[in-house]
């Protein structure tokens, strides 16, 4: 019975102009977004891996040089674009991708793409994820708002009920019709692109990406399913199609457009972000404090660069200084990043009323473009920087410190450069993303169940009022 209902509804929708036009537009945008995203990603990844290889090569062949000056030239490392970044660029435009690892200070990831773009960037990025999060729910509402109320208004509901159609079949049939319409649009492109993407990957990374895609499919399935059942529920509950449309559109605007902005304003009040100036001051203060303590403990000197400290201890001093700074850096950057993550977790509760907020976090996480994975990269880059620093200081202690005032005439050679390993960064696996985002998925599942229950309730009430 439910198959007949679904088939009838789908035929109706196919004949109606709404699905054709809106669906066609979404399909075109989807293809454009995928093509542009793919093109961009291939170019970026090629550029970055080539850049990084060249950079390491230059490091190895930098000739004879004082190790501290080598650390001045430093090393550039680039964040690789995760394969699913094409699907959901996430926070990508608003965080950088390049770190210049230099002596003394934790280098931050720089060059945000949004800085090289105009104000238009703030309207959003055309990505498949954006289309699925914002436009497809609108499509579901637009084609489904009158699926129950329309039957009532046309008088066909009476006939349908007189045939003894059970409420459950009616609900499932209508839902299947709406879901298939959305599915027909998304699934072929989605499956095709997934196959293309997986086929282009090296064999070792395939399994991880396949898992990610399946989880993404589950998340988006729940989200769009939520809109299908919600649309049906409202369509059955309210008196007229017009009212159903107004209520659903109102919900869509509030939930997908207004809620994310309000949520981020609200959590900023709850967990304020420090200003750059305050952060830098605090960091410098902490580093200076830790350093003077360490200097007092190791050399009995009161201040850094105390005249009582001969240059024959400069390498050793550098090592002590750096090691003392690591703690302060970890604490300050860790604190800042924890604030960001707290802000995001707090926002996810807004997902209870605005499912897009929960989905957005989940989608970015699984696509590998969320903050936790950016943080993972930043930490890896900092570890590499410390590795360089430690190797350099060790070498200075061994070779330069015995030279006294001629400390800076010491020159290290290729063997030292080769002892610094190349920067190899492995993108975190799917389990890392799931550990951070299972909550959002659970929230989506709960919301989905609630919407099914609401739709069930709406259809099991006396429909003829």
């Amino acid at each position, binding site marked *: 019975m439910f198959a007949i209902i679904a088939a009838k509804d789908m035929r109706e929708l196919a004949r109606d102009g709404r699905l054709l036009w809106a669906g066609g537009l979404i399909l075109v945008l989807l293809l454009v977004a995928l093509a542009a995203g793919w093109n961009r990603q291939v170019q970026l990844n090629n550029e970055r891996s080539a850049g990084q290889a060249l950079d390491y090569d230059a490091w190895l062949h930098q*000739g004879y040089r004082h190790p501290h000056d080598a650390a001045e030239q430093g090393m550039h490392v680039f964040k690789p674009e995760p394969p699913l970044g094409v699907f959901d660029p996430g926070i990508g435009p608003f965080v950088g991708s390049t770190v210049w690892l230099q002596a003394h200070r934790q280098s931050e990831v720089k060059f*945000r793409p949004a800085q090289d773009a105009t104000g*238009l960037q703030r309207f959003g990025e055309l990505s498949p994820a954006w289309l699925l999060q914002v436009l497809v729910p609108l499509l579901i509402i637009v084609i489904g708002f009158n699926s129950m109320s329309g039957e009532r208004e046309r008088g066909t509901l009476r006939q349908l009920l007189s045939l003894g159609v059970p409420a459950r079949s009616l609900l499932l049939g209508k839902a299947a019709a709406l879901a298939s319409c959305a599915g027909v649009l998304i699934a072929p492109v989605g499956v095709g692109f997934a196959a293309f993407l997986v086929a282009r990957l090296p064999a070792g990374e395939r399994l991880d990406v396949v898992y990610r895609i399946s989880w993404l499919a589950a998340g988006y399935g729940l989200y769009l399913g939520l809109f299908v059942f919600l649309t049906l529920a409202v369509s059955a509950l309210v008196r007229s199609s017009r009212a159903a449309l107004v209520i659903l559109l109102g919900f869509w605007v509030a939930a997908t457009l*207004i809620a994310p902005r309000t949520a981020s304003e609200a959590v900023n009040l709850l967990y304020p972000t420090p200003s750059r100036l305050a952060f830098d001051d605090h960091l410098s203060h902490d580093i200076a404090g830790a350093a003077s303590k360490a200097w007092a403990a190791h050399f009995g000197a009161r201040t850094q660069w105390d005249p009582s400290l001969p240059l024959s201890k400069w390498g050793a001093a550098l090592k002590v200084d750096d090691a003392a700074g690591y703690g302060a850096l970890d604490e300050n950057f860790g604190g800042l990043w924890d604030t960001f993550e707290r802000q995001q977790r707090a926002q996810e509760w807004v997902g209870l009323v605005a499912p897009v907020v929960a989905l957005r976090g989940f989608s970015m996480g699984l696509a590998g473009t969320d903050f936790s994975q950016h943080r993972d990269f930043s930490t890896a880059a900092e570890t590499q920087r410390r590795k360089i620093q430690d190797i350099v200081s060790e070498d200075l202690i061994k070779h330069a410190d015995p030279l006294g005032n001629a400390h800076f005439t010491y020159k290290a050679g290729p063997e030292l450069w080769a002892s610094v390993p190349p920067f190899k960064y492995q993108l975190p696996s799917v389990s890392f993303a799931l550990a951070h985002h299972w909550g959002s998925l659970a929230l989506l599942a709960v919301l989905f169940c609630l919407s099914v229950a609401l739709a069930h309730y709406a259809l099991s009430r006396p429909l003829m009022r």
Partner: protein
Amino acid sequence: MKSRSLSTLSLIIRHEARILVRDRTLPLVCCVLALMVGYGLFVGLAQATLRDRMVAQVAKHEQETQRANTGTLQSVLAGKSALVPFSNPANPAALAGTLAGRFATIPNAPLAALAIGQSDMMPNYYRISYLSKVQFMYDTEIENPWNLLSGHFDLAFVIVFVLPLLVTTLGYNLLSAEREHGTLRMLCSQPLSVPTLLTGKIVVRMLALLAIAIPLPLIVVLLIRPETRGVEQLLLMLSWSALITAYTLFWFAVAALVNATGLSSSANALIMVALWTTFVLILPVTMNLVVGLVSPAPSRTELASRTRVATAESLREFESLYSADYRYASDPEALLVKGERIEVPSRMRAFFLAKQRVDEKIEPLLERFDRQLLQQQRLVDRLSLLSPAILVNEALNSIAGTDSRRFVAFKDQTEAFHNKWRQYFSPRILESRAMTAQDLSSLPQWHWIEIPASETSWSIWWRTALMLALAFMVGGAALARSSRSNRIAV
């Protein structure tokens, strides 16, 4: 004839106002708008205050450092304290670095609270030192990237995104409801033309919305921020009001045109939402993609590689300075000011010169980034003709002084100041001239030069004029169609 149609119009307006108040639609919509405008303004004010405070803090920081340096210099010159090279203000190479604590700052424009624009992403101060431009020009303000992605709930958002939706709520069934209630036939039997009816209905709704959207923020801003009370600012506020009026009028004209097609209320609502989605969501996002494709930014990876090459070359060039003997730890006497001279440690001289050389080499590439951004901006100006939302958003940001143009100008001026800063120190470092107390008080001063008001106001007024022309065109089409159509009442 004319006076009769005017009196009919006023009759319709009065009648319509009464109905809208009685069925509570108008009060409800107005309340929602007032709440959102108020909240948006609150967010804008909070952000503007935050940035004001930052600039003030930076200025304070600068003064304190200046005072501390002057004090230290006196004791150094008196031979009371010998210092390590890095913290000796008599040493020009140290002062050229971070010791001077110099900043370049951009103040908020007086109307900054009206739109946050790019101000949450672009820094409003740079720390000036002899460091290379790649090292300090990319420090950004700290903000959670997630929040940058979501965007702010500021007044510009309320106007560009939400106001058209409220217009839709009030206007999707201007004629269709009358027809569905069966009252349109009755109305048409009166000596009343459909265009007059449509105009009257729109006037009431539009006045109600504008009565909230325009005076509310302006009054608050005028009360809270005294710097907004100048003639120039009042003119900007005038253009702001004109822009919002034009944008609202445009959306009402669209509603009128949709109503003139004679479809049902539901269909009208769908068409309005489709148009809104196209103009406000899809077109800007697509244009962003197009701008990136047509006029892509140069590669940042290339910049990084060039920086590395330039750094390596400059290290090689100043090799001998870098590896010179360093005796200041064991021989602090060497650091004292003798006559008007001070020994600038070779390594510090090397730092200064090397950074300067790096900038000389990568400057052309950095300029390419700025040029490209301006070119993108010009493209956006042209493409904004396609979507009123882009048009209005750009204009709102330039009124508030938070558009990319102003920040690019800030960057340009900072770069010029940075060069001046270096030029000031360069001879002193090369000739080992010690800094005197007088030097310290006559260091290069940063002054922000505001973009000429004529340039801004031109870019705002042509947008407003265009928006008005668009609104009148659509409105004219709607009125013409509604007067011709006989089917409307059926």
